């Protein structure tokens, strides 16, 4: 059984010029203990999907359909209060490293404590928790602005693990951190995951980081999941032309803007090309691609691709 | 931060609104007096909404104003009612001038005591006058006394002999209480040794301020002054006046006409201050028991001694030209001023003195002059002719001009008369070709006195029962009064007129045979010159409530004028009867 199963998820936003579909018919499974990566250009819908899984899409956005199954519960249809209880306890999130995810006017320890308290847990063991993610003693009494970026991110990890969830969504947890700190934070995350026996959904656009960290990888393009495969398989043999181009640009992967290497512009979500959304940029595109939308196919065991020619 | 008491009060009131209590709490709570024995009045004293001077009962300090209560605390040598043309000898029993008016002997009444039990005597009178002379400009009335008085001596307990520097036939009348003028006799045993400029004479525990009169101050705070009747008042015992029926009178500071109207309609207040004519209809509708001097009919009041003029600064060209002044006068339709400015509730005034009974003979003596030079005439043609005659021509925009300059009358005003008439005057002048604007500068008094104005709406505090006071207002120079101060707001100068006025200074005002010709001579100069433009009488339009009190001084029963702020108000207080 999967730790998390997403089935046919659709998220769209109301816009004065029409409906914008940010996540379109996305399905995938997260196995227990697994590290699953999700890559895509910015605007490809990966962060929206993370929010959708947490049921945190705010108006004017909304989930249009699909199921989010977590340990027998469907988050897509659960009552608001039940969803709240499930957050952190069942599925936790490590926010983007570039975000100021911590309330600047509260001591960080309090920000762990209130999470526990609101889940009817006594706020104990915070010091141990901090130590567990490699923070020095006394950190809990500090304010966010007194911590470095890496330390703040560790605090976020500590918060994410404090209720021992089965799934952790990490949305670009190391963006805005320098490379050395990045490594350390990722190591901490890996340790925590092992510790908790949790599954991790790692979202990002840094293929290099993904290659080192995840077991399986999903590739998103224009709100759709275009390929899912074990990481070794993808690196060795990408099936989707888009994935292929991503891998091809790997030599410059240490660069933040690695994905800029792909010719053409990412499409506007509110004005998607017909058929396969990638066809205007695709070197292999044919007439069919502009008309017919490819459905996901399992071309090999464990490898799903959305392409007519894979 | 600023100082100890304020910090304390700040903290107190920050705690709750209810803590607003630092007012008059130190004083004992006055005993209750039923409403029907209490007379409550509102007076628009020096500050809106507050008795800033509540602890100042020394009437000579320049911060003191007799209008705010001292007028019923200190008794005079005599009262004078202009309406009844009657003098009431009071602390003084009689007085006698020497024929040359260089000495005055006053007999004071025996058997009068101050409220602290010390007998009143001639010493108090002499002390008051001598201290005034010595203090001079430091205190009120000091210069008036210093200019003419050499020495006051108490020759025995009931006799004061006053020696003058110059003949002073009006000195006793000057000391007599009427309107706002009179000498307050203060207790020597309290005031002696005190600095009159800052001594307050206030300490309720000691019974201060002490008084010979029927009123004792029992409470004084920012919000109210409470006076209680003293049953052992000497004048009641002596049969000079009845013991007042009013047992308590509460004086409240005004917070505006609208509040007064509301309070009178709801019977919270028995007497008001002078208000605008327009408000009376609302008052009568709201409370039919409210009356005025003229009942419920216009002008809702009586003529004050303060006729209002349009002053033209004679130092400013072209107003040094009497023809220009007359032209301005001819351009003013006084009917409109009364109908629109006062809603019909006023009267014109042909000379700068009120048409009081004792003054009528003087008016009569210049009747022909006023017919020839009608100071009230509205006649634009005559005005045009005068200006044309002096070479003024109307320019393309219809304004009178000469050598490229127009006639410009910028008028300043204040109080009630300014706004009531100012805009109308400028409008009338503009329509006749004279540039004009109206303003009410905050520093009106300063400008007016320094002569920094062109036109000004102001009154004349001059004559009541004989014309010298009025003439004095126009004197440009005086030899008769040593170191005389000059009022001369219009800056008009005429040596012959000055001489006549000086001559009149030494004449006994009761000597009509000499007074009338002198007045006639002065007016023969003054009227054709017209130093300022005559407009209207000043009215005191005071609402009185007959719900609790009657026998107010109305026109059928005009025992005195009814202003609570005048020195004669004690007469009203002992005449009031329960309704």
């Amino acid at each position: 059984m999967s730790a998390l199963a997403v089935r046919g998820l659709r998220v769209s936003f109301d816009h004065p010029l029409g409906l914008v579909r940010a996540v379109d018919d996305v399905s995938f499974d997260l196995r227990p203990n697994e590290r699953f990566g999700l890559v895509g250009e910015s605007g490809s819908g990966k962060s929206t999907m993370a929010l959708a899984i947490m049921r945190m899409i705010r108006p004017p956005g909304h989930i249009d359909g699909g199921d989010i199954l977590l340990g027998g519960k469907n988050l897509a249809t659960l009552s608001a209060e039940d969803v709240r209880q499930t957050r952190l306890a069942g599925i936790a999130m490590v926010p983007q490293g570039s975000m100021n995810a911590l309330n600047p006017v509260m001591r960080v320890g309090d920000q762990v404590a209130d999470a526990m308290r609101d889940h009817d847990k006594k706020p104990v063991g915070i010091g141990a928790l901090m130590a567990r993610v490699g923070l020095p003693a006394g950190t809990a009494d500090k304010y966010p602005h007194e911590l470095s970026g890496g330390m703040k991110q560790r605090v976020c990890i500590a918060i994410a693990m404090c209720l021992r969830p089965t799934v952790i969504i990490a949305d670009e947890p190391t963006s805005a951190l320098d490379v050395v700190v990045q490594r350390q934070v990722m190591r901490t995350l890996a340790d925590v995951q092992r510790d908790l026996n949790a599954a991790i959904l790692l979202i990002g656009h840094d293929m290099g980081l993904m290659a080192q960290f995840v077991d399986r990888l999903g590739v998103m393009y224009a709100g759709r999941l275009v390929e899912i495969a074990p990481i070794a398989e993808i690196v060795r043999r990408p099936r989707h032309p888009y994935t292929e181009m991503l891998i091809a640009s790997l030599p410059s992967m240490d660069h933040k803007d690695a994905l800029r290497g792909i010719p053409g512009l990412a499409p506007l979500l509110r004005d998607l090309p017909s058929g396969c959304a990638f066809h205007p940029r695709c070197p292999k595109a044919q007439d069919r691609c502009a008309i017919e939308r490819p459905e996901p196919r399992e071309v090999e065991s464990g490898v799903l691709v959305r392409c007519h020619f894979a | 931060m600023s100082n100890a008491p304020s910090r304390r009060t700040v903290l107190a009131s920050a705690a709750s609104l209810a803590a607003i209590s630092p007012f008059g709490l130190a004083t004992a709570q006055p005993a209750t007096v039923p409403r029907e024995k209490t007379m409550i009045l509102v007076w628009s004293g020096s500050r809106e909404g507050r008795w800033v001077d509540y602890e100042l009962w020394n009437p000579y300090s320049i911060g003191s104003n007799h209008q705010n209560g001292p007028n019923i605390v200190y008794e005079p040598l005599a009262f004078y009612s202009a309406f009844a043309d009657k003098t009431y000898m009071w602390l003084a029993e009689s007085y006698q001038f020497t024929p040359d008016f260089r000495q005055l002997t006053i007999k004071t009444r025996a058997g009068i005591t101050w409220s602290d039990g010390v007998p009143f005597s001639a010493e108090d009178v002499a002390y008051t006058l001598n201290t005034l002379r010595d203090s001079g400009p430091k205190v009120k009335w000091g210069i008036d006394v210093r200019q003419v008085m050499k020495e006051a001596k108490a020759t025995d307990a009931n006799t004061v002999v006053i020696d003058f520097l110059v003949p002073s036939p009006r000195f006793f009348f000057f000391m007599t209480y009427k309107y706002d003028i009179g000498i307050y006799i203060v207790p020597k045993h309290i005031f002696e040794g005190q600095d009159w400029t800052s001594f307050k004479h206030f300490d309720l525990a000691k019974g201060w301020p002490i008084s010979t009169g029927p009123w004792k101050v029992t409470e004084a705070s920012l919000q109210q002054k409470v006076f209680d009747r003293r049953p052992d008042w000497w004048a009641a015992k002596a049969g000079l006046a009845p013991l007042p029926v009013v047992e308590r009178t509460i004086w409240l500071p005004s917070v505006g006409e609208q509040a007064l109207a509301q309070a009178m309609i709801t019977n919270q207040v028995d007497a008001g201050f002078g208000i605008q004519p327009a408000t009376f209809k609302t008052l009568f509708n709201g409370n039919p028991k409210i009356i005025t001097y003229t009942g419920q009919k216009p002008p809702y009041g009586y003529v004050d001694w303060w006729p209002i003029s349009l002053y033209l600064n004679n130092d400013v060209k072209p107003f040094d030209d009497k023809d220009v002044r007359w032209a301005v006068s001819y351009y003013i339709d006084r009917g409109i001023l009364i109908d629109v400015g006062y809603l019909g509730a006023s009267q014109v005034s042909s000379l700068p003195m009120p048409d009081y009974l004792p003054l009528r003979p003087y008016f009569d003596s210049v009747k022909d002059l006023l017919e020839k030079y009608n100071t009230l005439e509205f006649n634009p043609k005559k005005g045009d002719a005068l200006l044309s005659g002096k070479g003024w021509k109307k320019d393309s925009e219809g304004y009178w001009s000469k050598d490229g300059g127009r006639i410009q009358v910028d008028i300043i005003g204040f109080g009630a008369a300014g706004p009531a008439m100012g805009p109308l005057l400028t409008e009338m002048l503009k329509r006749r070709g004279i540039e004009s604007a109206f303003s009410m500068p905050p520093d009106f008094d300063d400008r007016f006195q320094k002569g920094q104005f062109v036109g000004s709406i102001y009154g004349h505090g001059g004559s009541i029962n004989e014309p010298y006071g009025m003439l004095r207002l126009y004197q440009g120079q005086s030899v008769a009064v040593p170191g005389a101060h000059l009022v001369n707001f219009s800056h008009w100068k005429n040596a012959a007129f000055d001489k006549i006025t000086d001559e009149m200074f030494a004449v006994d005002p009761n000597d009509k045979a000499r007074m009338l010709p002198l007045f006639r001579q002065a007016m023969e100069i003054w009227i054709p010159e017209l130093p300022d433009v005559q407009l209207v009488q000043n009215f005191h339009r005071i609402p009185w409530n007959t719900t609790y009190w009657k026998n107010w001084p109305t026109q059928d029963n005009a025992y005195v004028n009814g202003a609570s702020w005048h020195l004669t108000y004690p007469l009203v207080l002992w005449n009031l009867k329960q309704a």
Partner: protein
Amino acid sequence: MLRYLKRNPSLAVGIGLLSVLVLFLLVGMVLIDPEDARPLSAPALRPPSWAYPFGTDRQGRDLFAAMVVGTPLTLRIGFIAGILGVVIGTILAFVAGFYRGIVDTLIRGIADIGLTVPGLLILIIIAVSVRGGLTVNQMALVVASLAWLNPTRTIRSQVLTLRERGYVEVARLSGMNGPEIIFFEMIPNLLPYLGATLVNAVSAAILASIGLEVLGLGPLEAPTLGMTLYWVNFNAAIINGWWWWWTAPIAIILIVFLGLFFMTVGLDEIANPRLRRSV
């Protein structure tokens, strides 16, 4: 434009209200004789009728004419003072915020201290030193003399945040000089904010002028809205039941302030789009 207004109802309401007012003034100017706004041009104290749609006041002004003549005067005071205030404030704010250092300290200090002095004191001192009656333009200058303090402060802080933005740094590195950066980079970015500040300043200036006038310190003969209220108050019109005398000026003042207010709210939304999200 119309489409945009649909999304920004506050701006639409604001513009709508002010348009109604302008329309009233334009129609009024056709219908009235401006002379009727002067005293003695009509019988005094008439309630509204066909001849005098807003009634007349105690001095015989036709209140309809007085409103048509007086409203633009009040607006003129507000606009002159408001514009002067914002222009001076903007210049000082940019000089202070951009060059920093001693200039900034000086300007900021002056503005801070200026704000501690009771405005009324300064306004009265100026009013006192103007000999003769105050004219409407002088009144505007009196109000303007204090109207620059607040804009200076608020715009300065905006300039300071703007300074830290990347594009200003880029512009500086690309060799633009100070005034160029201010004119080509900063002012365009601040325009919506300056717009909102201006509208705010205008309504503050109108408020200040009406306040002074109600206290009797305005141009006594001009039929401005504030002076009309002064006469209302002076004549105790409220308790005397002359309701028409004060309803018209109060209604117009309400329209002016509400219109300006909704315009600032609308402009704020342009300047700060996040606000648009709720309500």
